[in-house]
């Protein structure tokens, strides 16, 4: 029987079964000629097949699922929250600077100009938020691409999507999670109520 070796389509890996099938087909063709050299080649291919099989098993058991379900998504959300938080803080700073600028109109000319100059420096400095926002957005896009590749890898490895890796930290260490994402955690009012203040 003439079996053809499957070829990967663009941007998509062969599945574990396809790789095994390809190597088996190749070996069956070579093994029909029983020379010493061919026997060595066949043995090498068997070893290679075993190694590829082990690699696939290792990948599907460990890395992709953890990345897909936990770290990448968290990093994506955290960075988006940084952009939001810095934007809100910058708006607040600019708003207060505007108030100072208005109040300065009642000052003598020299004092007024000094305040206006300082406020101008504040406006200029607040431009950082635009720059950092754009840089973070680029990182978020990159993470999104990695996430898509990992997703494709998981599907190639059998389409299994294991649940998120469990947080193995215990005690006080498990309490250190940094600021909550918007909508998560509780407000100061809720904390005050909880503590009875």
């Amino acid at each position, binding site marked *: 029987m003439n079996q053809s070796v499957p070829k990967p389509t663009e941007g998509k890996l062969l599945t574990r079964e396809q790789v095994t099938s390809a190597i088996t087909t190749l070996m069956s063709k070579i093994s029909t000629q029983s020379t010493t050299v061919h026997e060595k080649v066949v043995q090498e291919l068997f070893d290679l097949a075993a190694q590829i099989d082990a690699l696939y098993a290792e990948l599907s058991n460990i890395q992709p699922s953890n990345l897909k379900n936990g770290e990448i998504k968290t990093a994506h959300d955290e960075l988006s929250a940084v952009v939001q938080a810095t*934007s809100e803080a*910058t*708006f607040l700073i*600019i708003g207060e*600077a*505007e108030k100072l*600028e208005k109040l300065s109109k009642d000052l003598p000319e020299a004092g007024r100009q000094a305040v*206006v100059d300082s406020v*101008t420096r504040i*406006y*200029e400095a*607040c*431009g*950082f*938020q*635009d*720059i950092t*926002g*754009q840089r973070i957005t680029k990182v978020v896009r990159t993470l999104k691409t990695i996430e898509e590749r990992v997703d494709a890898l998981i599907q190639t490895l059998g389409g299994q999507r294991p649940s998120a890796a469990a947080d193995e930290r215990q005690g006080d260490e498990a309490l250190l999670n940094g600021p909550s994402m918007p909508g998560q955690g509780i407000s100061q009012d809720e904390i005050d109520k909880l503590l009875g203040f």
Partner: protein
Amino acid sequence: MSVDKKMYVLVVDDFPTMRKIIRNLLEQLGFSNIGEAENGADALRKMRDTAHKFGLVISDWNMEPMTGLQLLKEVRADNGLKATPFIMITAENKTENVIAAKEAGVNNYIVKPFNAATLKSKIEAVLGPIG
């Protein structure tokens, strides 16, 4: 002859913070009629739909759904808008960006982060002394 500070200026940027900063700096320079748009498509709509003509557009580049460069090309291709002075103000600071903007007909180009003096000098280079 000094710039007419009552002219309408359109500030285009997808970051509200940056729109506010540019607006405040323009107000410090004496401009009082300042409009805002959050992307190229929004800006083009405002330029076409508003009764008054904008005497200056100050636009970011990297925006969706229409970039600053696309906006510039649309403006230059529109008989009613093509003469509008257009300043690009962007973090895109590669040579090819500046060349592309120049070829599209930009009047001046400011790289972020920028300062008030740079903004003033670029506006003056396009419109004349602010006074």
